[in-house]
């Protein structure tokens, strides 16, 4: 069952120009975390920003009872979050949402992350690795500096292939080009992806073409984060008559159910 807690910040590091890693202790929450779920965090204690902000579970240490978030500073809330210091508390709710559906047995898995979209894939990789899966990760970013999850993914034991637009590391160009050039679909059982929608749209096509099971993690503006406000609505397919709620029915969906923006 999700909960609400004051998480004790035990580390908070700037990992590049605009990205931070925040680790806090919240045993009840950590215990429940599934890959792909998110934490609803209140940046600052005042009314501004007013609402909580959803951030994916980047990593979990169940022994320590800690959860780690990876976030990029894009606006008011994330900027304010940067000022939290270790030994201070963050107000967190979670874990929320429907996470990734894990394979029943060890499989050959591909993870495709774009930018900060790598966040949910790291804890996913950790759990899959523990299940004995064989994991390849593609991570596309602007530049070498944004490949912030590299160390974690290497330690977890994944095969990691970066793609950077400026060519400062790995493949020079889009991660989707790398996908199409490098990955042999026959050697894959399943794909998980999170990142910009046009990127995920290419992954969806790839999965469909080769009939590979795949899941995506989506984003919408959120207020409650628990399915009560109906704010984070999305039509999975253009012709659907009903809206799903990304916070509750997602954020993870089967890629076949979703029409992605290109």
């Amino acid at each position: 069952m999700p909960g609400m807690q004051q998480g004790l910040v035990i580390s908070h590091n700037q990992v590049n120009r605009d990205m931070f890693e925040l680790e806090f202790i919240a045993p009840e929450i950590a215990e429940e975390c599934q890959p792909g779920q998110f934490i609803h965090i209140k940046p600052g204690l005042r009314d501004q920003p007013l609402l909580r902000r959803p951030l994916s579970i980047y990593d979990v240490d169940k022994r320590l009872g800690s959860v780690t978030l990876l976030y990029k500073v894009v606006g008011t809330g994330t900027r304010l979050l940067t000022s939290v210091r270790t030994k201070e508390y963050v107000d967190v709710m979670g874990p929320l949402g429907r996470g990734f559906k894990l394979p029943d047995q060890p499989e050959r898995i591909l993870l495709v992350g774009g930018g900060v979209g790598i966040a949910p894939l790291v804890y996913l990789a950790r759990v899959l690795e523990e299940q004995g899966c064989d994991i390849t990760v593609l991570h596309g970013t602007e530049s070498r500096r944004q490949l912030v999850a590299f160390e974690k993914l290497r330690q977890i034991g994944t095969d990691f292939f970066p793609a950077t637009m400026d060519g400062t590391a790995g493949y020079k160009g889009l991660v989707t080009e790398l996908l199409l050039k490098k990955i042999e679909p026959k050697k894959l059982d399943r794909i998980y992806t999170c990142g910009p929608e046009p990127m995920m749209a290419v992954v969806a096509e790839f999965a469909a073409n080769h009939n590979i099971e795949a899941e995506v993690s989506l984003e919408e503006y959120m207020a409650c984060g628990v399915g009560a406000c109906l704010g984070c609505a999305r039509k999975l397919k253009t012709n659907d008559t009903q809206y799903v709620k990304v916070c509750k029915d997602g954020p993870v969906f089967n890629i076949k159910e979703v029409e992605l923006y290109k």
Partner: protein
Amino acid sequence: MKKEMEISREIDISTDLGGIKLNNPVCAASGTFGYGREYEPYVDISKIGAVIVKGTTLEPRAGNPPPRIIETASGMLNAIGLENPGINEFLNTHLPYLRENNVTVIANIAGNTIEEYAAIAEMIEGNPGVAGIELNISCPNVKQGGLQFGTDPQMVYEVVKAVKEKTTLPVMPKLSPNVTDIVEIARASEAGGADALSMINTLMGMAVDINTRKPFLANIFGGLSGPAIKPVALRMIYQVYREVKLPILGGGGIVNYRDALEFLMVGATAISVGTGIFINPQLTEEIVSNLLHYMQENNVASLSELVGAAHQA
């Protein structure tokens, strides 16, 4: 010390909202608490003054396309578009759940025509577990070309009257603040037979995405809620309290017990929290316990000492 603790046990904060009996005066506002289920992990929903469920219509509604919400300074805009599963589904699925959990339920209903309001009220009648009906009259009246019911005193009068004729439950219209003269609307409600008033619904607002140069919400306009609107809500309740004798459920921007006290003091008999719940799902509980603490510290024996206190000379 001992004495104080004894007093605390004796403070009674149950209240009566025009026939709706509440164990405590702090309710969850419509549309912000779903049908109760979503917040079960965080709070004992049976202890909430009343859960006012999501606005429910005759037929199911899909609601508006996204984006439906956007944050603003100390507030948020929403244009959910009354997404809901319809009154049948409410009565068959959600109400039994709430009843089993001993939740005090106020049904919030909305229609496109007076007949629809009346029909929904009629369907609710006889179903155990509904303590009262809140009329959301901020929806556009399709027969009158989209003009909101809640902005025309005559329509307000008629809607309230039509619903009262179909139900034995207490009826509480929820007033829209987007009017020139809120007292006039309150009077029309009273004339129509309302048992209580709910004030206020959201202020109509909008936001622009300067990157796309388009209105941010797909629906263009949305309802502004949260602390930003508190001064307007307090003012309107203050005005209505002086002129109309109905009990008032007050809300709009309440995020702590001090806000709640302001609403009681301008004349609210009970209060509702909406947007504040998104930030703190335990807000209803927290306000109740802080309110009790405040009353104890200040030797306030009953809520009635606070209700309308700001009107004393």
